[in-house]
């Protein structure tokens, strides 16, 4: 993986730039000691590291604006950072960049139940948004698995999803407004407590733009009342094809479960060894969860059970208590931890049309043999968002590279069958060089044009999302 050469001019001016930042921020909000900037050298994609020039931790929109205006004037690259949980390297610095962390922006500004909104500063963690309203029966729906740590700013940058998207949508569907600072240091308001944009849907455009179009400092989010209850059912099948067909039939029948999770045999075995959830040793396992009052849950589960039985399940286990529900989810929730116990792993994130599930799983199996690395599959089947986990040994010579090549093959396969490279993690640096498999040069040019409008000097997180050679002229002209 390549990153652009840092600007020698910027590196040479480090002392001056740090002083300029200190002029604009409180003393403890600027970090420049190499021992301390090390903490910001990577995000959750830990394979790639690079300490930044400096780190700033502004505590208000005004401070963010002051930093960006200064960096814009001085042509210093800026990399925005939420909580640093990106799996795609979205917050990976370059040596000549200033990391702008939003960790100190974590207040709740307004909670309004009649209008079902909460307004928060963007450094607040995803789970603590729900934490602020759950005593009153409400929650914030997008639930990425890093929700304990990840910041709303990062959720907006990556348009994060989670396990419950089939019913509640992803971040963009639950975001009503933002305060955003442009690279030039201008503060703009997009959306608010009302619905829909007066002109172009700029809010929709900045959500998922990976911190390349502006820095979001505040967000108005949709909160909804918690359902009265929820209950999962576990089903085991003796082939991926049959499990895939069952998912499709459930959706066709008009049931819209809140989650449909799929695990294949390698994943089931690893989770079972780790979490001891009592999973059957089958080829494919589905966990389907429905919500509502008790009678509604029963009505939906009876429909789902009826459909599942037509597919001759090896196992059909409907939860009858909180304890049983927790047990059904226990293995699934431990999936990533279980994999981590066995080996190093790379987690992919391609999305495919649900109908292509059996074919794609079959082909992943073949590729796995070809490359000599095991792949376990666990994913959100309802919306086709796959998470193949490639197991490898980081200490073995060349295995990381083999793993990356296999990963690229799997993602190309996702695109080939009508899907995409990334469903919820973002492109970052990780999938940057695969963009041309999904988009034509004209398709990419249209996206680059958007960045030209928002950040004409290409200073904001500029080495991400697009292949470096596609952006080289723009970055050097800036």
């Amino acid at each position, binding site marked *: 993986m390549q990153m652009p050469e840092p600007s020698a001019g910027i590196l040479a001016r480090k002392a001056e730039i740090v002083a300029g930042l200190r002029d604009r921020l409180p003393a403890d909000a600027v970090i420049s000691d190499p021992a301390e900037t090390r903490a910001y050298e990577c995000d959750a994609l830990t394979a790639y590291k690079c300490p930044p020039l400096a780190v700033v931790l502004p505590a208000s929109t005004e401070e963010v604006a002051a930093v960006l205006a200064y960096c814009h004037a001085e042509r210093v690259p800026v990399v925005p950072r939420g909580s640093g949980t990106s799996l795609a390297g979205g917050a990976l610095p370059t040596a000549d960049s200033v990391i702008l962390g939003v960790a100190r922006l974590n207040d709740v500004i307004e909670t309004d139940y009649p*209008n*079902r909104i909460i307004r928060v500063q963007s450094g607040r963690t995803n789970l603590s948004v729900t934490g602020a309203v759950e005593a009153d029966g409400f929650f914030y729906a997008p639930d990425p698995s890093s929700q304990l740590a990840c910041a709303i700013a990062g959720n907006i940058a990556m348009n994060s999803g989670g396990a419950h998207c089939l019913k509640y949508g992803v971040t963009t*569907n639950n975001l009503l407004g933002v305060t955003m600072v442009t690279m030039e240091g201008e503060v703009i308001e997009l959306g*608010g407590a009302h619905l829909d944009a007066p002109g172009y*849907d700029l809010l929709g455009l900045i959500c998922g733009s990976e911190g390349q179009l502006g820095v979001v400092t505040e967000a108005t989010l949709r909160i909804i009342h918690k359902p009265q209850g929820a209950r999962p059912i576990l089903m085991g099948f003796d082939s991926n094809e049959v499990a895939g067909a069952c998912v499709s039939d459930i959706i066709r029948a008009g049931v819209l479960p809140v989650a449909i999770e799929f695990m294949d045999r390698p994943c089931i075995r690893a989770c079972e060894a780790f979490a001891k959830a009592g999973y059957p040793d089958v080829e494919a396992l589905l966990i389907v969860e429905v919500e509502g*009052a008790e*009678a509604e849950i029963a009505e939906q589960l009876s429909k789902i059970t009826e459909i599942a039985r037509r597919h001759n399940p090896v196992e059909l286990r409907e939860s009858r208590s909180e304890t049983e529900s927790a047990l059904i989810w226990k293995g699934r929730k431990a999936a990533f931890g279980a994999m981590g116990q066995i080996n190093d792993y790379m987690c992919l994130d391609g999305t495919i049309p649900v109908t292509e599930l059996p074919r794609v799983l079959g082909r992943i199996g073949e590729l796995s043999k070809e490359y000599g690395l095991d792949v376990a599959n666990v994913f959100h089947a309802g919306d086709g968002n796959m998470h193949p986990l490639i197991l490898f040994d980081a200490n073995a010579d060349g295995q990381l590279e083999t793993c990356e090549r296999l990963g690229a093959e799997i993602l190309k396969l996702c695109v080939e069958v009508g899907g995409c490279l*990334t469903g919820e993690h973002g492109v970052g640096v990780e999938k940057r060089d695969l963009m041309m498999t999904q988009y034509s040069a004209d398709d990419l040019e249209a996206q680059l044009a958007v960045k030209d409008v928002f950040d004409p000097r290409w200073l904001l997180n500029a080495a991400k999302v697009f292949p470096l050679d596609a952006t080289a002229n723009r970055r050097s002209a800036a």
Partner: protein
Amino acid sequence: MRPGSEAELADCVAGLTGPVAVRCGATRAPDAGDLPVLSAAGLSGITLYEPGALTLVAGAGTPMAEIEETLSAEGQMLAFEPMDHRHLTGRDGVPTIGGAVAVNASGPRRIQAGALRDSLLGVRFVDGQGRVIKNGGRVMKNVTGYDLVKLMAGSHGTLGVLSEVAIKVLPAPDARAVLLFNGLTDAEAVEALCAAMGSPFDVTGAAHLPAGVDGDPVTMIRIEGFEGSVALRAKALAAHLVRFGTPEVERDMGRTAAGWAFVRDLKGFTQADAAVWKISVRPSDGPKVGAALRAAQPDVGIVYDWSGGLVWAEWPDTGDLRVHLAGIPGHATLVRAGRGATGAVPRFAPEPAPVARLSEGLRAKFDPRGLFNPGLMTAHV
């Protein structure tokens, strides 16, 4: 100009020498005036429909009726309940999916299921230089690159001409219940709607007509789903809202569908010469909008949808209604100019300078020659 394929459309745009009015079914947009019309209506037909994946892909010119019939045959529907603008515009054209996307046409279900833009998975369009651009795709979760899909939804044909769209569809409900409260004031009604939306009963429609079919105020709250669940939630919701009175509960599928179509298409607005405005505010501010407009113009007709967050005004006046709403955050769009309007009132709310610069920058990139619907979305016509 009515190209029959995407390639023809691209050639057509590349060969343009001056501005055009971009249209599809021509049921929603203002009159083209002197501009030649470039119609995408010829790009018609459903190219992919996978009920098991809740996905449909169609040419921009595909009639809404064709899409709705196809979905209905599989027990599915469009999530966003698009408005049919013909009652308002008096046009006799055929509403198309491309036209709906161009105006982000979202009806009563928007408050629960999201706007059209939330169901839009992918687009193909031709930009102002005649280049075919695709963005998004046909899968529900996709964060690969920038989301130009949202940008195109509601851009009124000013950034490109849509050729194909991919949408997420939903199962159609088996059963429906509509709770009807009679005689509430606007303030009471919106309070009831907000209380309903804030309940766990998954309300899919929340509207208030200060003058219903028989001229009296009626407040409508909709619940949909499987029969057992609907019956249960309707009862629980009535109990939850008991402080607003005892509602009638309408269960007939045909009558309830007609009732919501009446709200969605503004069939209660019958003054053909009046302007029609669409006002988007924080739901609890809806009654403030209603009161301010009535104080300025006693003959105004009002409909509240989206829990009070969407206020429709039938405005018998050619002046700018926005001047009466100062201090209420949100925005107002002129959907139909009234008789005698001079064109001096901007259709779209003027944007603050830094936002307007971004919008103009995007227009300059996507349509550098200023070909598509010039002036339509700029604040100062």
